[in-house]
């Protein structure tokens, strides 16, 4: 009877992990109902001794009836018997549910269809678990359907499942295994009873409580280890970094690709504790380059997304050079650079290549294709992880004159589209900020300056969202956010001003380590790209850089403020770290961008961090572990010293007499040497046992026995006699006993007693005992069944004229 319930509980526990997948909790109760119905059907078949094969069909049937009742009762006959129309209704709901799931990313709204699918799925899992655990008596195998259920949130959710959810699921499974073990052993007879709680129930059924207890002990330990161990070992869990680009539902060979909410992923990455290396690159001119992954060109009022990207076989990057960068005039001056990029092996699924813009040629293994408009390079078959590829870029080198001369380009009108209903105050602010600008270029410059310097913006990862209201808040009131808000706001405002704009997502140039540049998780970045005719898309950088901003962000050279009197061609150098530029032939850094200094500050600790060698870390960790491991030994030494002094003084300190101190020290010694006394052993019995064990040596034996007897009989008198007048034990007695005990055990045991004395860990054990007692008490809260049996027993006893208390045995000291 218990097994079906345990199976149901296990399924319910694992279903709880589905919680983050849904908005709202209606699915939960419906699913619990499904489990309840399946469990009830299973229990009923067992109760009625139905044949084994009948179980699953009956459970299926009950599940079907339940789903009909829950979702189509108004169309069913007597609410539960399915009719043609109710089946049709269910079918419709299933279809709708699938559509919803296709359409939404987790967390999905718990629509009726989705709830039906969930409840049905959970119910089916419950049937499978029951089939394995109850019908086939293979409780361990029942873990497979449970695991399948558990995998759903693990697979779908980008964040790892929290450990409490894991604990819950694991305990559900352990409970099922324990119940199975109990039932199995219960058929053999009574288990050996050591800890008995109730006298009554063992009389009618074999008691397997003790067994369950050990099962729980093992289960608790295993689950605790499973949680604690990975936490203790650094870098054991593969970090879910770079998990944007997750191919939801696309296998390696799929032909379509879905893009998750890249912006949300970005925020997640920046907030991550860990700062892992994503990729490293070297470039021919040793300059940092922003590496773009996505180009988001549609703003729907809530967020930036990608328009449909298409690329045929002819667009494979292996077929030849990439399409020409849109908007770049054929004869314009470009700076050619080559970059060799190596992506780490352990990043998450990524089907887009991080590339400097604009790439003209990409040499990468695999089926990588370029999108015509955005020049994004992606694959439906291959993953970027572990890939190493070579990129040739031709960066436009616009002069301010070229930029000033930019005219609106009708081809890029779609990059001006804005959803209706945006706060008009944002547009007003854009106009106010850019007042006095005479060209799109100047407007863009003023916007960037406003964001980074004059607008009073603060960098913070706490901010959320970048659409409608969040945008207004960011631009008008809060002025707090990170690259997502900055990039989005600048792109939207640029569009408002009539400058074609889009948002790029990728990485900043990273920091220099040795000869190459290293890009880490925290370098994930979003920035706006603005379009100027004749030049094409240009990167802008509204996000503050440096320690109080995006660490390695860097403003592009062409946007640096030009001194009013300087010649238009004289642009300041990009920063202290950049060397003389070979093509621009700079005129010296008369204006040093203060943010560059900050950027260096921000980058410096990261470089330093890589300098800490892992061996040093391991050594430090080992040393710390050693110190921790020796704490019990140190505590033991202290305690022993204190007791010895107390015994030597013969007095009483803090209510503990010398006799007591000698006795507890003797007990602790016995625990350390593996001869612990059980609570049922009296001092005299202990003395007898030790005399047998240690008194064998004719030379030292009598002295040892005398010492033991002194300690034990003094304690005996202290406890039980009216007066204590026997000679109190001396410190020498303790020393004698310790020596004798030490010589009676193996060298290994002696060493263990000295280094990791078990007696100091007794309080841990006591704590555990208490916890297990708590478990026992829970175990004793048995609903009706046991209770009724107990009453029957009581009645029987009363008939014999004896009433006994079904209570616990004697108190435990």
């Amino acid at each position, binding site marked *: 009877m218990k097994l079906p319930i345990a199976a149901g509980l296990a399924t319910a526990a694992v279903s709880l992990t589905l919680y983050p997948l849904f908005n709202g909790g209606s699915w939960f109760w419906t699913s619990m109902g499904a489990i309840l119905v399946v469990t009830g059907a299973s229990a009923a078949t067992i109760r009625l001794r139905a044949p084994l094969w009948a179980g699953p069909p009956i459970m299926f049937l009950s599940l079907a009836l339940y789903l009909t009742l829950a979702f189509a009762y108004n169309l069913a006959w007597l609410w539960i018997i399915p009719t043609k129309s109710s089946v049709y209704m269910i079918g419709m709901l299933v279809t709708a549910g699938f559509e919803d799931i296709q359409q939404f990313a987790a967390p999905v709204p718990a629509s009726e269809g989705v709830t039906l699918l969930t409840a049905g799925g959970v119910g089916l899992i419950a049937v499978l678990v029951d089939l394995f655990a109850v019908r086939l008596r293979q409780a361990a195998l029942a873990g497979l359907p449970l695991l399948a259920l558990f995998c759903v949130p693990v697979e779908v959710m980008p964040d790892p499942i929290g450990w409490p959810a894991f604990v819950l699921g694991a305990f559900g499974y352990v409970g099922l295994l324990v119940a199975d073990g109990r039932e199995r052993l219960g058929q053999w007879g009574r288990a050996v009873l050591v800890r008995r709680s109730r*006298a009554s129930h063992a009389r009618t059924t074999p008691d397997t409580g003790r067994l369950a207890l050990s099962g729980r002990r093992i289960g608790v330990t295993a689950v605790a280890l499973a949680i604690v161990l990975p936490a203790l070992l650094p870098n054991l869990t593969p970090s879910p970094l770079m998990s944007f680009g997750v191919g939801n539902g696309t296998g390696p060979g799929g032909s379509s690709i879905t893009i998750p909410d890249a912006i949300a992923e970005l925020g997640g990455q920046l907030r991550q504790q860990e700062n892992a290396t994503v990729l490293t690159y070297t470039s021919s001119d040793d300059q940092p380059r922003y590496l773009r992954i996505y180009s988001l060109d549609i703003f729907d009022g809530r967020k930036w997304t990608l328009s449909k990207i298409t690329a045929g076989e002819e667009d494979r990057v292996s077929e030849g050079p990439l399409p020409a960068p849109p908007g770049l005039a054929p004869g314009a001056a470009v700076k050619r650079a080559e970059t060799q990029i190596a992506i780490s092996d352990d990043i998450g699924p990524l089907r887009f290549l991080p590339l400097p813009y604009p790439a003209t040629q990409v040499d990468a293994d695999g089926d990588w294709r370029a999108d015509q408009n955005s020049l994004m390079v992606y694959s439906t078959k291959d993953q970027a992880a572990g890939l190493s590829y070579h990129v040739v870029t031709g960066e436009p080198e616009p002069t301010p004159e070229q930029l000033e001369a930019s005219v609106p380009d009708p081809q890029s009108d779609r990059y001006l589209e804005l959803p209706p209903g945006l706060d008009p105050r944002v547009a007003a602010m854009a106009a106010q900020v850019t007042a006095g600008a005479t060209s799109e270029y100047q407007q863009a410059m003023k916007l960037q300056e406003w964001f980074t310097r004059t607008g009073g913006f603060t960098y913070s990862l706490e901010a959320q969202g970048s659409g409608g209201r969040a945008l207004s808040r960011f631009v008008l009131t809060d002025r707090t956010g990170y690259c997502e808000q900055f990039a989005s706001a600048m792109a939207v405002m640029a569009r408002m001003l009539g400058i074609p704009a889009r948002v790029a997502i990728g990485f900043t140039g990273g920091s220099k380590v040795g000869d190459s540049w290293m890009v880490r998780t925290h370098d994930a970045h979003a920035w706006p790209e603005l379009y100027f005719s004749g030049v094409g898309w240009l990167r802008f950088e509204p996000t503050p850089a440096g320690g109080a901003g995006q660490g390695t962000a860097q403003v592009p050279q062409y946007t640096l403020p030009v001194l009013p009197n300087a010649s238009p061609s004289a642009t300041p150098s990009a920063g202290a770290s950049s060397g003389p530029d070979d093509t621009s032939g700079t005129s010296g850094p008369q204006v040093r961008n203060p943010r560059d200094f900050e950027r260096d500050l921000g980058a410096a600790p990261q470089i330093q961090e890589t300098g800490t060698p892992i061996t040093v870390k391991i050594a430090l960790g080992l040393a710390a572990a050693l110190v921790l491991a020796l704490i019990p030994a140190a505590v033991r030494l202290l305690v022993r010293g204190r007791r010895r002094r107390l015994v030597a003084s013969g007095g009483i300190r803090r209510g503990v007499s010398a006799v007591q101190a000698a006795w507890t020290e003797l007990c602790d010694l016995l625990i350390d040497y593996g001869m612990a006394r059980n609570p049922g052993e009296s001092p005299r019995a202990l003395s007898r046992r030790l005399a047998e064990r240690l008194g064998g040596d004719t030379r030292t034996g009598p002295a040892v026995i005398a010492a033991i007897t002194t300690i034990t009989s003094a304690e005996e008198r202290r*406890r*039980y*006699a*009216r007066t204590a007048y026997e000679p109190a034990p001396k410190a020498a007695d303790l020393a004698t006993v310790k020596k004798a005990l030490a010589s009676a055990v193996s060298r290994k045991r002696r060493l263990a007693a000295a280094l990791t004395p078990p007696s100091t860990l007794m309080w841990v054990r006591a704590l555990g005992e208490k916890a297990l007692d708590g478990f026992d008490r829970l175990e004793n809260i048995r609903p009706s069944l046991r209770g009724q049996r107990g009453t029957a027993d009581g009645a029987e006893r009363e008939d014999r004229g*004896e009433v006994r208390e079904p209570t616990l*045995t004697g*108190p435990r*000291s």
Partner: protein
Amino acid sequence: MAATPDVTAAEVPLETLVDTANRIRRAIESVIEGKGDVVRLTLTVLLAEGHLLIEDVPGVGKTMLAKALARSIDCPVKRVQFTPDLLPSDVTGVSAYNQQNGEFEFKPGPVFANIVVGDEINRASPKTQSALLECMEERQVTVDGVTYGLGSPFMVIATQNPIEMEGTYALPEAQRDRFTAKIAMGYPAPAAELEMLDVHGASQPLDKLEPVATTAEVRALIQAIRAVYVSQSVKKYAIDIVTATRTSPDLALGASPRATLHMVRCARAHAALSGRDYVIPDDLRDLAVPVLAHRLLPSMEAQGQRRLPEQTIVDLVARVPVPDTK
């Protein structure tokens, strides 16, 4: 019989007590070979003012033990051979009409002695058994409305054959409960048996047994034992053991509160015989089986598994934690 003389504990130091007890023990052991623990328990029960039930097969010296104890204390000893036709008045005594003075006169029965040996008690009818058992508990006999007190010390040593033997009436639980302890003699060791042949072959050693103590001395010992100290925690320990028997699934019937009383009393005697003026848990542990086992009924399950109450008690006692405070 004479009223108990006013003897206080202070008059008998522990050393005297141990000395006297050892004298009695040696006297008995000169007759019963190689049964030191049985003799010691017998003495314990005597000093705890209890009654002893000796159960064993015929011919292992049950009666001899009872007689030897009686003989070594200089006190009246009566022996009743229980048979199926024995009547209650044969045990307690009867009022007979005296023709000379025309009055009814009480003829005391065999219970009017300090030590009464009830041989093969389970052969008598329950009616007669209960007559004896009433005297044991009340320490008095009521015949024709007149109550007669019994002597002090008063100890019944009943022997019985295991109930499986033919022609016996098993003692009901309620009556077994009145006996403080039950012991089995057991067969003697071969060496002891050989010695027995040598000794008993030449003469009857019981005849040579001289009293080594007086009833007054024994009464003083009993008084002294009442003064043995039992700490609260040890009393609680006794209750723990008894409670354990009441809740054990192996036992259908646990020990009674009277059992607790008997146990603590015996523990005092046991402690005193060991030369201690305080009781330790070990005293209770040593006595748990003889004092408790005969009062318990094994559960059906334990019977099925052939688990004797003795074994159950040993297991239970090993599990009850000893007290570590006063």
